[in-house]
């Protein structure tokens, strides 16, 4: 193949996935743009955004890849009913990894910002936001990844090619959306006490 052939093929293969994640990224951006009041109310929250978004991609991308491999190997059946043992274990492990990593991110961000002398919200607020956002987005992303990968597989699509764009798109949207819900919830609870 000539350089031109390689370039044309690579371009054609990548464009649909990029277009899908572009839409997800822009929706996530609009939600983030609408969160300016919350970002002002919780100093340090913006520092957490890249870590939380990347965690969604890393954890649930890997869950999707595992499910795709298990489907290819015939280890699991593409039906949610009955709750397959392996599937449940993989989903719980992903959820635990997601929540632990988000909590770790909030603790590191708090201490780094305190050390740097920057303004930062109290530790329990940041940790609370990270846990609630990690848990809610994790549950929704697990359901979305399992449902869409199974549905695609039953329609004869290769699950490997579905997982990447699916997780980058829904991960960004649900990551930011549940971050907003988590911030509002935690601020409301903190306001009561």
């Amino acid at each position, binding site marked *: 193949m000539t350089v031109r052939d390689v370039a044309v093929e690579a371009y054609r293969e990548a464009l649909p996935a990029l277009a899908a*994640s572009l839409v997800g990224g822009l929706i996530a951006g609009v939600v983030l743009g609408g969160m300016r009041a919350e970002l002002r109310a919780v100093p340090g929250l913006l520092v957490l955004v890249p870590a939380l978004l990347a965690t969604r991609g890393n954890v649930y991308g890997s869950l999707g890849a595992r499910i795709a491999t298990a489907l290819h190997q015939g280890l699991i059946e593409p039906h949610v009913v009955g709750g397959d043992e392996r599937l449940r274990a993989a989903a719980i492990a992903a959820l635990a990894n997601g929540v632990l990593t988000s909590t770790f991110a909030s603790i590191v961000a708090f201490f780094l910002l305190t050390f740097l002398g920057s303004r930062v919200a109290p530790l329990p607020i940041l940790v609370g936001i990270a846990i609630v956002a990690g848990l809610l987005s994790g549950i929704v992303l697990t359901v979305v990844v399992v449902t869409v990968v199974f549905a695609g597989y039953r329609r004869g699509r290769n699950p490997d090619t579905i997982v990447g764009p699916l997780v980058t798109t829904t991960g*960004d949207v649900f990551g930011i959306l549940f971050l907003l819900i988590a911030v509002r919830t935690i601020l409301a609870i903190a306001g009561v006490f």
Partner: protein
Amino acid sequence: MLPVLLVLTLVEIGSGLILGSFEAELLRYPSLLVLVPVTIGTAGNLGSILAARLSTSFHLGTLSFSPADDELAGNAIATVVLALTVFPIIGVGAWILTALVSGSTALSLEKVVLISSTSGVSLAVLAVFVTFTATYIAYQFGLDPDDVVIPVVTNVCDVLGVVVLFAVSQLLI
């Protein structure tokens, strides 16, 4: 998997600190804030698609690490052209959505498109460089590029996405 996640989180906190350092500008110009997730996401995707293609060619034995290699050159060109295709659309999308949601945007349409396009092309060039380097290092150490290169490239591109967006908006605003 957890130790890898924790290390990657530290890298992402680094990009969060850069983001935090221009928080005032991001809050003043909402279109810039809208650009943040889509810019880092697209940069990471460009890198991970390139990495997946290179590691497949590597496993098939059609890749050689020479500047004259057709696979390397073709994939590098495609990455830059992809950035030239999507980033102007991202700029227009971010501006329109900000105008619809917040009413006013504080930055002109041309300026937002210029910022997103300049950031996008710089990021594509950086993504090519990072992916080639990571794949070459994995190859030298006898590691499977499928396991190592994609997470490294995605997360490094996330950080570079924030750094480049910061640098370009400092330069152009």
